[in-house]
């Protein structure tokens, strides 16, 4: 079956613009995670969705970051008023449930000029 997909694969934007990053999880996976990977760094947790529960937003670095998950499937990560320090690879992962193996998408490489 299809894996986790993310779009766009690359995004170049100007400082101050808003961007939307999309994640299509594996069908049937109830858990969905967003991470940020900066150059030479590990994965930084951003937000977590599990079923119909309220998302865990504890990793979002500022109120410019938000995410939603519609119908328990597709998720969109939105970054408002982008800053140069937002440049990174944004990874999405899905799993059957908490503490289960996560399946990662290829990521969206964001460059803020």
């Amino acid at each position: 079956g299809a894996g986790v997909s993310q779009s766009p694969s690359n995004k170049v934007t100007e400082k101050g613009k808003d961007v939307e990053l999309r994640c299509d999880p594996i069908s049937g996976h109830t858990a969905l995670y967003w991470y940020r990977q900066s150059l030479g760094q590990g994965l930084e947790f951003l937000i977590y969705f599990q079923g119909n529960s309220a998302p865990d937003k504890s990793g979002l670095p500022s109120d410019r970051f938000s995410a939603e998950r519609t119908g328990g499937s597709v998720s969109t990560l939105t970054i408002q008023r982008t800053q140069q320090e937002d440049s990174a690879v944004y990874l999405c992962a899905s799993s059957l449930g908490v503490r289960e193996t996560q399946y990662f998408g290829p990521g969206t490489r964001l460059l803020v000029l």
Partner: protein
Amino acid sequence: AQSVTQPDIHITVSEGASLELRCNYSYGATPYLFWYVQSPGQGLQLLLKYFSGDTLVQGIKGFEAEFKRSQSSFNLRKPSVHWSDAAEYFCAVVSSGGSYIPTFGRGTSLIVHP
């Protein structure tokens, strides 16, 4: 708070040589432990995981890892490295109770010389 340390930023080995990548964690109880590999331009792929039971776990691509509770370690090993193993390797920890948010190490970059 749980933490994961991968002390080696880069490791260089010759093809055919053995490999050990180190991972140490800090957590009060036995966590769930994972090793992921990220090849250039690819997403992360699970190599192996440890939840409980036998402390030596086998994974894909000939990798294995051993959980050592006394050393709070979960080191990844492979007896003979192939050039295609060149990649970034990440160790991750999830608590077995409480927070379900995984903590990742900063990664170890493996370079394989022919």
